[in-house]
């Protein structure tokens, strides 16, 4: 042990004063997550506002934590929520159970279910952490209309799926982005 050793320790402290601060001011300033962070889920919409979810329950099937509950419903001519025959009548994700693995997003056949960066999923009430369809649905962007309403962008669901990217352009979604990513930005 040398005579300067105690001073060396101060040296380390002093030296840190000139380095870049990595502490984040949370929650005052907030901390953006990584772009592909597995945060809260979002149920996306077609460019005219119809829901993409068809209530197929593949997300619930894929979920290893059994956090998702879905019940399908039948679209009628008077009440249409999604293109095609079927829509998700009831959709719930239990964030007490969700482990954020994202298998549900991979399973989704219509790219209805995606994850956004929002991660502040804590509460003092268990009930509040069961997010329902209203909580999960993407916000209505300009040009979107709250369902139920008839199909505005085609005659059947094929038009929605096959021409999806073009339809999105037509509705003002910039090239290189999808409806989902632009919605994500809107949320943030």
């Amino acid at each position, binding site marked *: 042990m040398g005579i300067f050793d105690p001073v060396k320790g101060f040296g380390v402290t002093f030296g840190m004063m000139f380095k870049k601060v990595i502490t984040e001011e949370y929650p005052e300033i907030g901390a953006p997550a990584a772009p592909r962070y597995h945060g809260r889920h979002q149920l996306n919409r077609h460019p005219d506002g119809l829901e993409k979810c*068809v*209530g*197929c*329950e*593949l997300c*619930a*099937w894929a979920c290893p934590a059994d956090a998702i509950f879905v*019940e*399908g*419903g*039948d679209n009628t001519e008077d009440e249409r929520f999604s293109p*095609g*025959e*079927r829509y998700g*009548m009831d959709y719930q994700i239990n964030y007490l159970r969700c482990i954020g693995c994202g298998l549900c997003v991979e399973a989704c*056949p*219509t790219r209805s279910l995606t994850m956004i960066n929002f991660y502040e999923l804590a509460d003092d009430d268990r009930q509040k952490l069961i997010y329902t369809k209203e909580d999960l649905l993407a916000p209505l962007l300009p040009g979107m209309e709250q369902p139920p309403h008839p199909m505005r962008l085609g005659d059947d669901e*094929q038009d929605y799926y096959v021409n999806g990217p073009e339809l999105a352009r037509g509705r003002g979604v910039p090239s290189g982005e999808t409806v989902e990513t632009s919605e994500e930005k809107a949320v943030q």
Partner: protein
Amino acid sequence: MTMAPEEPKVEVPEGHVKLTVDGEEVIAPKGELLIRTAERLGTVVPRFCDHPLLDPAGACRQCLVEVEMGGRPMPKPQASCTMTVADGMVVKTQRTSPVADKAQQGVMELLLINHPLDCPICDKGGECPLQNQAMAHGRPESRFRDKKRTFPKPLPISTQVLLDRERCVLCQRCTRFSAQIAGDPFIELLERGAHQQIGTAETADVLDMASRTSSGKPFQSYFSGNTIQICPVGALTSAQYRFRSRPFDLVSSPSVCEHCSSGCAERTDFRRGKVMRKLAGEDPEVNEEWVCDKGRFAFRYATASDRIRTPLVRNAETGELEEASWTQALRAAAEGLAKARDGKGAAVLSGGRSTVEDAYSYAKFARVALRTNDIDFRARAHSAEELDFLGSRVVGTGPENGVTFHALEHAPLVLCVAFEPEEEAPAVFLRLRKGARNRGTQVVHIGQWTTPAVDRTFGELLACVPGAEASAVEGIAQHAPDLDESLRAEGAVVLVGERAAEVPGLFTALHRLAERTGARLAWIPRRAGERGAVEVGALPTLLPGGRAVTDAAARTEVEQVWGLAEGALPAEPGRDTTGILTALVAGELDGLVVGGVDPNDLPDPALAREALAAAGFVVSLEMRPSGVTDHADVVLPIAPVDEKAGSFLNWEGRHREFPVSLEGTGALPDCRVLDTLGVEMDADLFTQTPAAAAGDFARLAVKGTFTASDAVKVPFTAAPDVPHQQAATPGAGQAVLATWRQLIDDGSLLIDEPHLAGTARAVVARMSAATAEGLGGHVTVSTDRGSISLPIVVADLPDGVVWLPGNSPGSKVRATLGAGHGSVVSIAAGGAR
């Protein structure tokens, strides 16, 4: 030099052949299909069209295997579902033959060309043979780059069955089922080549505009649900189950159908405490793999919004039923019943839909707690003659000594008397048709007109005026000697339905016929619980196990088992349903316990209402508000079959046990409610649970006392002996009424099922052309109580007879006319309704 060990010579039994499958020698019975032989060896050849209960079709070509006969390979792979085994055949399935495997993959690719990517929204997804086999035997990538053929969808071919032609692989299971099993060929293959598709007569006209036509002639069948279940893709789906859940959501539990007395095995699938669907269970002895649409689709009565879930007690001041706790309600019920019992007496009407355990509890409750024999389960037309018949020829029969489904199929002759198999016991109808179709069973119906069931059992109708069935049966020896001769053949069967109770002398005539010819006689009630209720003694003349009330030794036996004092059981036979109601009106009875009885089913609904109003104290065990709860002083809610365990005895006397499907709903079975009510009245029933009730009853059940030879002569009570009467003769402007219920009607277990109701048969009046003359297409049938107006359809009824559906919308014969089968009614030209 080493010798190869000599192979042990396997003897090929008579009627069998030896062949090689995948290099393994196997002995198979002649006529067995290759696909089954392979299956026995554990190799599942993929297939869609093949179904063990349908004739082979070779339609889907998925089951191709390589076959070598006599050392010469067949030039191309062969369909193993149509080729039978032959001696020396060498078969290579996809396991050992790359050729077969490639052929199967090729077929799968072709089948998938036009199959839409609907799996996420298809009800079959997750339990789909096409999905599974595409994963197992298909190619991972599709090479098809063109546009798939599309059709508008879904196309309703009835209110219940939806057709999606894009998904169809043309396996023809549905069309073969309709043509072969049910005999309703409404669904057919249409068009040719690439345009070939499944459809109905209606869809043929419009083809691509077909989705807009749901009217016209639908796929009307009582068995249409089976086509949905056997469809190997999601081409046929049910409107009721559409998008309700996924296979992995569902918890399945085996169950038994609670509707008719066939006791079909079912599978109940439920999710979050709610039944989502019922499927046919597999029981080769009973329903094979089929159930009727009523059994499959009618279950939402249990979740009806008006279901009673808490006990109700009538407030003495306001006269209204008010919710009460179980303790309060049971105390009120016990006090009222004890008072009635110690006064003029109390009686029990237990209804025909109870499980064996519940019916036993009613029977025991009447004897032990109410100390009376005034109990009757028959909530329908009934007679004293029927009581004798049930006691002498029905109690104690079972599959080991009585008539069975198997016996029906293998009988040389089946005579149906006052029994409409398709409407009253559809599983019996399917067996009759199977026997007639495959084995040439002769089916003879003694009825009024050539119903669809007569046609489709390739049957013969002996038409008679309603009420003259007894004379017809008595006259068989003189007027139909060939039939008489056939009845003497080994295995001939006579079936009689619930309607026989409305024809005086019919049971006697049938009993004599059976004695004379040696034909076996079976009683097929319409309701699931009736056969069991006979066995457990829910009748005024019978104690459990078919013991006669009047038999002192039998009473002592029952007293010992029940732990009662000697002489505690009443020795006098009790009153039957009508007797009980009349006594209530006359003030000879004070109290009444009613379980699941609709006054409109009773022979005289007006009398029933009067009796309920006159009764001093009425306790009703019910699921939903009814004509009885309107008058009840205490209403005790009970569990539907999905929420309790138990068993039914089907018409064969076969024990059909089922576990509880929905646990923890808090609903109590009748036996538990009666047990607690008994305790409140200081009487121990020991029927706290269905298992306890079953155990208690087992000590009294008839066991092993019969052999097959004396099966039909169980001398419990005197055989029925009622002379047959002449049928009523209608005067001018009158007709004799023939009536029975249709399978899908306004029954209380059919509520909340709009899709099912849409498949009901048309509600029309039927009469002969001569009777219909001058009525102008519309008839008003009336009695002094009321009238029913219906359109006329001319049928081959005897003159002076009019047929009405018993309880269909617009034709509630009992409730409106107060008349029954064989009554004389007035007919007049009716205005358009």
